[in-house]
């Protein structure tokens, strides 16, 4: 449990310089990810990533968002049942699978999420998404 936290902090420090900016550089992975976020994620997780109390979890500094990339990628691919607690809180809506998104789109949106809403964590690559998708 602690190992990944250290990893998250380290990787956060490592990419702090290019992740701080609110407006991602045009054409960057985060900029493309913002578009994916607006189409598929924003309604539930909200424009500021704050989620909906007791209904849809926030994306701000939660262990899922900042933690192991593989877990986070699997959540996007397979969705998450409402019966699974997140940082000890229960949220009542199921998250549907988003496996219809391309590897690059998932990489982009996770890179965007991990570098916005006060989050500072490393980018996700299409290769990492591809590897996780192959696991199923």
């Amino acid at each position, binding site marked *: 449990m602690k190992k990944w936290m250290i990893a998250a902090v380290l990787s956060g420090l490592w990419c702090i310089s290019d992740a701080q900016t609110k407006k991602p550089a045009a054409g960057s992975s985060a900029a493309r990810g913002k578009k994916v976020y607006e189409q598929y994620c924003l309604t539930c997780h*909200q424009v*500021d990533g*704050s989620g909906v*109390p007791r*209904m*849809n979890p926030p994306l701000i500094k939660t262990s899922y968002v900042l933690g192991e990339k593989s877990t986070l990628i699997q959540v996007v691919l397979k969705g998450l049942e409402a*019966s699974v607690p997140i940082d000890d809180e229960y949220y*009542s809506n199921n998250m*549907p699978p*988003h496996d219809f998104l391309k590897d690059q789109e998932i990489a982009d949106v996770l890179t965007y999420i991990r570098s916005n809403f006060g989050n500072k964590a490393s980018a996700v690559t299409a290769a990492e998404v591809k590897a996780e998708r192959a696991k199923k």
Partner: protein
Amino acid sequence: MKTKVIFLGLSLLGLMSESFAIGKSGDSSRHVVADPGNAGLKLPAGFHAQAIAENLGGARHIAVTRKGDIYVKIQSGKPGKAIAVLHDSDGDGKMDDIKTFGTYRGTGIAIKDGYLYASSDEEVFRYKLNDQYQVQNQDQPEKIITGLINRHQHESKSIALDNSGNIYVNIGAYSNSCQEKDRAKGAKGIQGCPIRDSAAGIWQFRADKANQTYGDGTRYASGLRNVVGLDWNTESNHLFVMQHGRDGLYDMFPEYYSLQQGNELPAECMYKLNKGDDAGWPYIYYDGLQNKKMLAPEYGGDGKKKGGENAIDPVVAFPAHMAPNGLLFYTGNQFPEKYKNGAFVAFHGSWNRQKGQKGYFVAFVPFKNGMPSGKWEIFADGFAGVPDIQSPGQAQHRPCGLAQGPDGSLYVTDDVKGTVYKISYSK
């Protein structure tokens, strides 16, 4: 010290601007100090609001006794925190004596014929009240209904009682639109939706029988996605319910719906129920702009095809996604004549609109002979405390439960901070 001085100052200010006597018979010494700021609420002329309790936690539904004591169902699983009992020991209008009991999450609470009824997300309990309307045995309620389905989504079991010894329980659908995979883009709706067998409706049970479950009750009405606010109308002897309409028309079907249409569809509907009624979920939704029942896109709809020939029509269609969590028919004598027998609806406020949320107010619908007799209007606004709300997390308060006091005042709960508002009228 400082707070005391401020409090005194506010009290004096309150006394100077307006104070009004609470309708307690023969006790003119009891004065309620009005809050000149109306606790931050915007109300019609002549109405006043006061925050009579704060910081209760997730204050959901509410019931007021004939003595003016208040029971609030708290959405908390913490030991001993299920129900808050509020008492005003010095008669100044603020509930200064607050105790809690019970250990279960849940939303529903009601008082009927000498009993307090309260629900968890799977069961309904009742507690015997003494002649002072106090709960006799806080640790050993009678379990009257058990084994109701709870799959976390739409899990609250709201309750209402009629005058014939029946209790009505909402069992919400654990799904948005009964797709093969919930909320998944491209997933079809299941034909003969099996969720309707044990959920997505209102079940009727006896109010005085122990350990009832599905087999002992009757599915009173079906095809209701999720109801949180419901009330028995004693004028027409009908159950009225507020449905939470479906989500995701734009998100899942951008080929049929624009972002704007996704924001405005479907309507949040008020239904007047007769036994056996079907409101049509998941096969249809109600389009409040065209006033038509439309075939759901998961079942072959495209935003244009109509559906639900056998489904009932709503009696009021409100704007989409505002999340009606409380319904109350006003039978008191304190408010002006137009409010008599009308419906108050507490809208928790939307989360699934884009570019601006809606709701976070209490609405009013005038009624005549058990049917709406005019357009709905906003009655109490300003709960959110911020203009142009973008995300529900920004709201300082969200209205949830409604109750009528013995003097005809209206009570509103807030489940963000746990404020209880008392709204009264004086000329």
